[in-house]
């Protein structure tokens, strides 16, 4: 390492920390804590590149990348914004999204997770120590030695159960008070009854005590709970992250002065400024300025639309070239964005409550546990002619053996393995039941703009243009921030074209760029402004003197789009393409990707109606979309996926989110979900078979604590191993 970082003190932080703390206590504004999501980070090199680079950044005190959550936490001086860090990361080549630290209640989830992990650890240690003593008993210790070992086991087991069993007791109590019966009630019953009987047997110097079985039961069940919790916590924090992605700010104009305000505080009649590249925050009317706006998120159209004074704009549209002053007609709850959200909420509530396979298994299984052991108790009471102690012992043995250790692990272990695999591929599961629903899918509907395509144009006919036109076009395009100009400039640069020397270049917002070249006026922009006849496709027009040239553009395919369609068709899924864009564009794309079923010019309601229609015929639909016009269809579909670049309303409505740019994980996810369901079913069968074999043994009175411990650990381990087989 270089000497730049070397410091005189052996522990510089020790010297600095108290001083820094004192400083922090005095200063009203301490270091800001910024959170940035970095979905592309995956390796040691990523950690050191990012942390090293940010350490060099002015004003940054510390940066730490959490690779598990793919989240960068930065402590920086006040004045450093998350956007600066995002920009810096993007220069390094990492996709990054700003997170609002305020809405991420990290600490709460973290606390819960740690509390659960603490219980797992404590029950694990207690289990091992009791097992140490139990092995001695099983291998032949008897008389006072056995009694003493049992007594010590009891001393370890009682506080352990009291502390680590709390989650089960609490849930059972809550369920009992509400008059419900769930899995935790028989579990709590089994734990407490077994513990009491074991203590009773110990005091009477009995032969069998089940302390290790009780603690082991708690341990395995807690492991299942922890896995389940972690899967849900990741999902929840992801949902919060996504909600936090869009920081709802707007620039309000008050007496000509600009003020940053929350969108929620805007009222009808207020005036807001929308800069080029900014998203229109409200519904309104343009009062001043000229520009083009991109409505693709709302309607799926790829062609930008001209907006001048008097034009209506809606929240969610993107302003492209010139600044616009907009008078608010509807903000917040009344805006078209929110009306769409209401429609989504309605569609969601209409979606049937989905019962998972774990819930079905548990509700079938829960009552059998107490019934079996009660049955054993009475039968043995009658058989033995009233030997209460014998009957009780057999009842406890069958109770502990039937207890669903493996059942508690069967589903969470598989779900954890599967969501971990998908997360590494760049797909985040937001909803716990999504994996299961995904496995049932037989029809996939794709949206076009922003989903199968990037939503960014790429020039298509550059080669056909004369060199002179190319050079002039490059010169003009380089002085504009319009997406078509940017794409054109990049395409021409890639061809090795040199820009022509232009004079007096200036941009006319809403129309194009104008300049003087060799004494003649040249223009690049809209057809009517340039004097060209418009073609049916997205295009920019160049005029040199009286001559015009049309540069056409096509939307770029998202990486992996072709693979995903092929992959899904190979899995015999019906693939649909439904877009709000014009027929020609949609037909071309469908042909290019080999999609036979397509529909163009679809309104949001049409998309939702198509989903409903397919559901009517018995199909299970996976909807993949990103736009506001997809949200209703996303929430109406059986299961839905949206890319991270989607509008937050679309992401909120979908069950899974694609973190990267690549679409290919979608096909993997469908395949993986099928395998995961197979594993879950195998696991459930496995734990059922263990019971079929060992419950009769327990009922006949042959089961010993050794049997119980062996069955419990073998079934739990085999279930976990089976989950890890997931490929």
């Amino acid at each position, binding site marked *: 390492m270089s000497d730049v970082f070397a410091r005189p003190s052996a522990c*510089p932080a020790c010297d600095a920390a108290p001083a820094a703390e004192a400083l922090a206590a005095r200063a009203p504004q301490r270091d800001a804590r910024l959170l940035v999501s970095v979905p592309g980070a995956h390796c040691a090199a990523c950690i050191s590149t990012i942390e090293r680079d940010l350490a060099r950044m002015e004003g940054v005190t510390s940066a*730490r*990348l959490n690779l598990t959550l793919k989240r960068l936490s930065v*402590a920086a001086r006040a004045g450093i914004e998350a956007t600066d860090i995002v920009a810096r990361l993007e220069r390094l080549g990492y996709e990054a999204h700003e997170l609002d630290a305020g809405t991420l209640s990290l600490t709460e989830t973290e606390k819960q997770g740690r509390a659960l*992990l*603490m219980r797992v650890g404590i029950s694990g*240690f207690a289990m091992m120590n009791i097992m140490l003593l139990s092995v001695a008993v099983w291998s032949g210790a008897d008389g006072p030695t056995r009694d003493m070992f049992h007594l010590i086991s009891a001393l370890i087991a009682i506080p352990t159960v009291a502390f680590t069993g709390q989650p089960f007791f609490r849930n059972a109590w809550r369920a009992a008070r509400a008059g419900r019966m769930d899995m935790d009630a028989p579990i709590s019953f089994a734990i407490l009854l077994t513990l009491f009987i074991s203590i009773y047997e110990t005091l009477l110097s009995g032969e069998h005590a089940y302390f290790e079985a009780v603690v082991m039961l708690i341990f395995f069940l807690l492991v299942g709970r922890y896995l389940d919790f972690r899967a849900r916590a990741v999902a929840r924090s992801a949902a919060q992250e996504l909600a936090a992605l869009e920081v709802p700010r707007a620039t309000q104009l008050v007496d000509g002065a600009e003020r940053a305000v929350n969108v929620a505080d805007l009222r009808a009649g207020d005036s807001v400024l929308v800069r080029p590249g900014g998203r229109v925050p409200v519904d309104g009317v343009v009062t001043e300025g000229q520009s083009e706006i991109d409505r693709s998120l709302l309607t799926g159209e790829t062609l930008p639309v001209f907006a001048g004074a008097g034009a209506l704009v809606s929240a969610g549209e993107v302003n492209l070239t010139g600044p616009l002053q907009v008078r608010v007609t509807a903000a917040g709850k009344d805006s078209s964005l929110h009306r769409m959200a209401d429609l989504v909420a309605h569609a969601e509530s209409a979606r049937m409550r989905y019962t998972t396979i774990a819930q079905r298994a548990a509700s079938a299984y829960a009552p059998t546990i107490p019934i079996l052991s009660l049955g054993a108790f009475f039968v043995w009471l009658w058989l033995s002619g009233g030997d209460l102690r014998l009957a009780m012992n057999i009842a406890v043995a069958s109770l502990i053996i039937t207890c669903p250790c493996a059942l508690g692990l069967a589903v969470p272990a598989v779900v954890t393995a599967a969501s971990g695999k998908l997360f590494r591929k760049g797909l985040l599961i937001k909803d716990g039941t999504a994996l299961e629903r995904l496995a049932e899918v037989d029809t996939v509907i794709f949206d076009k703009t922003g989903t199968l395509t990037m939503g960014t144009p790429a020039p298509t006919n550059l080669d056909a243009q004369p060199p002179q036109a190319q050079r002039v076009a490059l010169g003009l395009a380089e002085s504009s921030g319009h997406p078509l100009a940017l794409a054109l400039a990049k395409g021409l640069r890639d061809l090795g074209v040199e820009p022509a020397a232009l004079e007096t270049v200036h941009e006319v917002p809403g129309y194009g760029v104008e300049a003087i070249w060799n004494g003649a006026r040249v223009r690049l922009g809209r057809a009517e402004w340039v004097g060209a006849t418009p073609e049916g496709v997205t295009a920019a027009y160049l005029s040199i003197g009286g001559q015009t040239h049309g540069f056409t553009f096509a939307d770029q395919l998202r990486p992996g789009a072709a693979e995903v369609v092929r992959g899904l068709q190979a899995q015999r899924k019906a693939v649909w393409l439904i877009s709000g864009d014009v027929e020609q564009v949609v037909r071309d794309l469908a042909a290019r990707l080999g999609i036979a079923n397509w529909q163009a010019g679809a309104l949001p309601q049409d998309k939702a109606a198509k989903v409903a229609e397919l559901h009517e015929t018995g199909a299970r639909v996976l909807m993949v979309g990103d736009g506001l016009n997809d949200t209703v269809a996303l929430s109406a579909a059986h299961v839905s996926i949206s890319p991270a670049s989607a509008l937050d309303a679309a992401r909120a409505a979908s069950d899974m989110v694609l973190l990267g740019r690549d679409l290919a994980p979608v096909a993997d996810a469908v395949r993986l979900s099928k395998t995961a369901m197979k594993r879950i079913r195998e696991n459930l069968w496995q734990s059922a078979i263990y019971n079929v074999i060992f419950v009769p043994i327990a009922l006949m009175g042959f089961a010993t604590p050794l049997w119980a411990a062996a069955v419990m650990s073998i079934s739990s381990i085999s279930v976990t191993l089976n989950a890890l087989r997931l490929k």
Partner: protein
Amino acid sequence: MEVLAVLIPVSLGLGLMGLVAFVWSLKKGQYDDPEGDSQRILDTRYDDKPKPVDEDQRR
């Protein structure tokens, strides 16, 4: 069998030590980023001297 009087307290003590170590490591946040920690071992930045204690580690 007198040896039990020594061995049992010893084994319980060892178990307790393990438990204390676990609780300590949990409280220190050592299980917050297992993925990252497994990769950080490959990082050469702090080979010569340890990383100065910062806010993330003091939590």
